[in-house]
Every structure is written in structure tokens, then in C-alpha cells.
């Protein structure tokens, strides 16, 4: 019935659903036990999770193309949020338009499994093309700032994220347990789990600040607790969803936990530079889309190249 989905992927999606149900029940229970306290943000947050996971699971189950379109749309939302957040130049309107236009191309290369083009299109061609377009327009004031900020955004929101989609088109025969969808699920689930784990460990045991200038609430205890939990879970899940061996899955877990942390604080630095708390208001309880995919901008390319080098 679902030829692109293996049984273990279905089980994993079921597990995610189970976690959401439990989270919703706990939130409802908390609200009943402490009617005086305000759980609006928690409840909004869980509701947003339902919507995000609902759309993601729907796309994964529907077809490979639907899943690729899903990631293309996430890239579009993220790039739009980024461009809406940073200072831009009026003269660059059409440059921004070209940047958006790169999204369908990048995901088309993914869909066509054209690895060579996928891996150079943005870092080479777009990198050279956009400054050319800016020079033709002719506005030199703040040229460097504009070229730099635009390219950083496209690399982060489009190039990095599109690696998650490329998992989908990798040769399924080399990953009989999970196929392409298994690796995507492994990446997304562990990245989001790591965010939550670091937060919970930090709340429960956090004492020593790890990077106070950028993110004052992050602690060493939260970071290390997250690394430990995420790595353990990565090793448990790997045989069911990925082609990774035990020792490789240890590396994958560390990569996701570490990369996720760095992605998170990188977007925090961006927000701190600009002077906003949330990157947007798209996801009630979370903030903007960048607040949700910050970790993924690091973990997606890192895990992809780790797995690609070892097994494809």
C-alpha cells in the first residue's frame, strides 16, 4: 500500500504520535491540577506540534514527491522569515526574487536525484549570480553587507535544509530497514528531541552558563544531558531506521546533539544581533519558523554527509 515506507518507519511515526498524545494529556492534567497557573504557551506549543507533525507525516506517507515539496515549502517560509527580519535594500528587490526562485530549482535537483547539481547549484552558481545581478542594478552602498547577508540566508535556509530532502532519494536498497523516509525521520526526530532534551536537562539541573553572551539560558548541564540522551536514543533507533552500525550511530548521535546546539545558538545570535526575541509569529508557542528549524540548519547537512560518506 505504501511502497516507499517501511514498517519500521510506520512504527516510528506511530511512536511520535504516541508522544504527542502523552504530551497533550500531561498538559491537560497540569491545567486541571493548577487552574491558577498559566499554561497558554505550553498548550499553544503542543497544538503547533500537532499541526507541524500532522503535515510532515501526511507528506511522508503520501509520496516521496510530496515530502520533497514539504521541505521546499519549509525552505520558502524560512527564507521569507529571514528576509523579513534582516535589513534589506530596496534596490535588491529583484535579487531577493531570484533568491526565492532558487528554491524550486534546488528541490528539483533533489527530485531528479542529480547529486552533482544539488551540491554546487547554490554554493557555486547562485553565489556568483546574485552579486552579478546586484552589480547590474548598480547600487554600491552596503553592497558587501547585502551580498553577505543574502548568501548566508540562502545557504542556511535553502541549501542546508535541502539536505534533509536528499535523504529521500538515496538508494533505498542500501537502507532496507528504513529507506529514505527512515533517515529523514531519524534526522528530524533526533534533532527536535535534542532541543527538548537540552531544554529539560537545563531546567532540571542547569547551573553553569555555557554561552551567556548569546543565549543566557543555555547551561553546560543542559547541553551535556542533551548530548547523552540524544546519543543514546540515536543508537537505539539507528538499526530500525538507518544503515548505520553501532559505532557509527554513536557518531551520528554526537553529531546531531552537537550540531543541533550550534544551529540553535547561531539563530539566537542572529536574533540577538537584530534585537528580537522570536523570529516571527507563524507557530504559536514556538515563535517563528526559524525558532523551530534553527538546529536543523546544522544537523541536516552534517548528518547527511556523514551517512552519505559511509554508506552511499
Amino acid at each position: 500500500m505504501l511502497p516507499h515506507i517501511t514498517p519500521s518507519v510506520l512504527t516510528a511515526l506511530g511512536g511520535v504520535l504516541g508522544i504527542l498524545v502523552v504530551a497533550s494529556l500531561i498538559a491537560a492534567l497540569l491545567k486541571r491540577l493548577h487552574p491558577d497557573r498559566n499554561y497558554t504557551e505550553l498548550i499553544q506549543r503542543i497544538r503547533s506540534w500537532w499541526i507541524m507533525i500532522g503535515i510532515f507525516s501526511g507528506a511522508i506517507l503520501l509520496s516521496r514527491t510530496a515530502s520533497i515539496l514539504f521541505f521546499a515549502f519549509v525552505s520558502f517560509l524560512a527564507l521569507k522569515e529571514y528576509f523579513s527580519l534582516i535589513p534589506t535594500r530596496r534596490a535588491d528587490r529583484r535579487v531577493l526574487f531570484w533568491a526565492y526562485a532558487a528554491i524550486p530549482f534546488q528541490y528539483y535537483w533533489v527530485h531528479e536525484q542529480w547529486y552533482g547539481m544539488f551540491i554546487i547549484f547554490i554554493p557555486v552558481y547562485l553565489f556568483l549570480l546574485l552579486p552579478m545581478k546586484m552589480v547590474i542594478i548598480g547600487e554600491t552602498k552596503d553592497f558587501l553587507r547585502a551580498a553577505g547577508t543574502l548568501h548566508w540566508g540562502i545557504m542556511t535556509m535553502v541549501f542546508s535544509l535541502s539536505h534533509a530532502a536528499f535523504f529521500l532519494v538515496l538508494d533505498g536498497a542500501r537502507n532496507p530497514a528504513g529507506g529514505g523516509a527512515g533517515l529523514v525521520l531519524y534526522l528530524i526526530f533526533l534533532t527536535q528531541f535534542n532541543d527538548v532534551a537540552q531544554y529539560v536537562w537545563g531546567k532540571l539541573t542547569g547551573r553553569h552558563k555555557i554561552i551567556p553572551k548569546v543565549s543566557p539560558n543555555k547551561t553546560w548541564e543542559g547541553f551535556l544531558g542533551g548530548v547523552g540522551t540524544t546519543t543514546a536514543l540515536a543508537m537505539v533507533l539507528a538499526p530500525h531506521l538507518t544503515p548505520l552500525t553501532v559505532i557509527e550511530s554513536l557518531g551520528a548521535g554526537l553529531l546531531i546533539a552537537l550540531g543541533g546546539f550550534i544551529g540553535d545558538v547561531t539563530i539566537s545570535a542572529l536574533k540577538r544581533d537584530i534585537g528580537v526575541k522570536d523570529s516571527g509569529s507563524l507557530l504559536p508557542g514556538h515563535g517563528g519558523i526559524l525558532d523551530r528549524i534553527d538546529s536543523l540548519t546544522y544537523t541536516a547537512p552534517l548528518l547527511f554527509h556523514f551517512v552519505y560518506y559511509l554508506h552511499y
Partner: protein
Amino acid sequence: MLQQLFFVLIVRPLVLIVIGLNIRHRERIPLKGPAIVVSNHNSHLDTLVLMTLLPWPRLRQLRPVAAKDYFLRNRVLAWFALNIMHIIPLERHLIDRTQDPLAACSEALQNGDILILFPEGSRGDPEQMGTLKTGIAHLAKRNPEVPVIPIFLHGLGKALPKGEAVLVPFFCDVFIGEPIRWSADRTSFMTTLEQEIKALAEEGYRPAWE
């Protein structure tokens, strides 16, 4: 019917997906008329966005007040403006003093419609607020019971400024203010209105755009 099709199939997907709105104080949107919605004006998208804030079955009651000389300048545009956007054409340069330029607006309010009005008079420079014209004060004076809802829009002038044909997606702010009513004299009414819109503007963060 044609209007609803246009909004459901084209305008709503455009506004919700391509642009994306950051709406504050949604509960202040008037759900029924008569009411006057007043906003700063930077883009043709402004009217479309404001018209998506209400549930679409009420679309027929929304009446953008728009410049007659601009929107009725040729037959195709006039057909679109009158039948799809359902505008109330406003004479901007009145020569004949015996005519009442706001008669159609007052009549619409008496029918329980919601007017959409841009007191700056034109889109002007992108993301700059010009001086407010006092037509709105005359209208409020004649209809002192009708709430005037100030709205601040930001970002649409970046997405589609005056004189540009290419739409570039940006998330846009729609900040809705508390309703104000006619306050016995024109100057104080206009000052209140302007301050309300400026106060709404202060609520948000806006990156530089030059």
C-alpha cells in the same frame, strides 16, 4: 459570486501563503458594519489584505473607498474595481461644489457596510506615512455612532511598492487598534487617528529598508 471566487482561489492563497500575515489584536476586527477601517497605504496589496481579515461570506459588505480617476480610468480596470473589488469611487479633485463627494460612503454606512479607507490619499513613497487627509473626519462627523478602526500595515510596501510589477514575498504586519469615534472637532479627531496609527507602528520591530 465572481468576487468570492476571486478571493477564495487567488487572493487568500496569495495573502496566506505567498505573503503571510503577522496579525496583532485580531479580536478588534469589526465583525459587522457599519464601521470604517482606516489604514496607512503603501501598496495595492493593502486593500486585498484588509479584505481577507473578515470571514469571506461577509465580503460583500466590505467597500474599499478608492480614487475614481485612477480605478475608473479604463473599462477593464473599472469593471474589476466595481464588480470584483466592489469599490466606492471617490472623486479626488472635485470642481463642482454642489456635489457631495462622501454621499456614497455615507449611504454605504447606512446600509451597514464596512468601509476601507486610506486617508493618505495615495500609496506614496514605500513604507513612509504621508499626511492624512481630512475626508475621514467629515465622514466620522456625519456618522458619529460608527466606530473608526485604525490599522497599521507594514511590509506590503516592500512586497509590492508603487511602480513595481514583481511581487517579492515578505511577512507583513497587520496591527489592529482600538476603535475611535468622532470627538467634537476635526483637529483632535485627526490627531487621535494619526497618533493611534503611529502607536500601533511602535508595537512592532521593522528592519531597515532603503
